[in-house]
């Protein structure tokens, strides 16, 4: 990444114009031109720096339900339990986290609240382990910016 790539990433995390020629409009603010901006974005997507260029959704706005859940999994069962959990299509991602006991953290994204509860009960039944369900009660707005 060079200096222009960094400026592009930093500027376009915050927003992007919804207009006929958005890359031309965004390029102007970046001191470059439309063709260069498009070429740089394509290259960064190719390299994997950008996963994609598009909208970020609010799941609740689409009638979906999202929750953060966690389990205390014995170390020797970790891979097996991860496979059981991940087999559910409602599991959007699943991370191991360093903690004395609460070491598996996953996000459930489903079409409604009832589906969240049903998926948690299914995971508990399959693994024999309790799941802590910690849905979001409030969000505090962060201007997401990772300096490139």
């Amino acid at each position, binding site marked *: 990444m060079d200096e222009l790539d960094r400026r592009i990433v930093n500027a376009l995390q915050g927003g992007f114009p919804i207009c006929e020629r958005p890359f031309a409009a965004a390029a102007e603010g970046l001191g470059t031109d439309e063709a260069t901006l498009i070429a740089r974005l394509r290259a960064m997507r190719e390299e994997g720096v950008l996963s994609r260029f598009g909208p970020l959704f609010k799941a609740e706005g689409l009638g979906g339900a999202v929750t953060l859940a966690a389990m205390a999994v014995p170390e020797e069962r970790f891979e097996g339990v991860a496979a059981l959990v991940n087999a559910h299509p409602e599991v959007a991602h699943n991370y*191991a986290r360093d903690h004395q006991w609460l070491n598996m953290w996953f996000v459930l994204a489903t079409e409604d609240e009832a589906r969240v509860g049903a998926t948690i009960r299914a995971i508990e039944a399959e693994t024999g382990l309790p799941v*802590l369900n910690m849905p979001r009660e409030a*969000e505090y707005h962060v201007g997401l910016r990772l300096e490139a």
Partner: protein
Amino acid sequence: MDVTPGERALLAALADGLPLEPHPFAALGERLGLTEAQALDALRALRDRGVVRRFGVVVRHHELGYRANAMVVWDVPDAAVDAAGRALAAAPDVTLCYRRPRRLPDWPYNLFCMIHGRGRDAVLRAVERAAYAAGLAAVPREVLFSGKRFKQRGAVFGPARTGGAAWTNSTAAS
């Protein structure tokens, strides 16, 4: 917030991202039988209603050099948690900040945030800075670094089933 079948189709077409070409909304509309103006209007309406939060690049933290991330959890008195959450969200290294229910007796934490950094030490320093900035230095907290990522999928928009299935592209602390 209800989403029409047409809007759902538009979001599904965007799940892989916007075409990187001079008239991206025309290209997008073409796939759906919409004119450029119709596609633009529909997206603006989704944005104005808050269904689409923002539009822009989605970066991969790891590829940008942010190799470490931690979920930091705090046990804040209920009466103070909203003010603390707003203050924490304003700290420069915090990328997500949510209030969640405690799960007593085992789990007393009600405020969660994500902090990304170029390494573990950088994350720990950022946690200290954020704690002081938000007035949370004396509040019980734990820092949970992420280990192996077992699964991550992007936005998935199923065809409308009963009521329509819709999922979000979200980060670890959604």
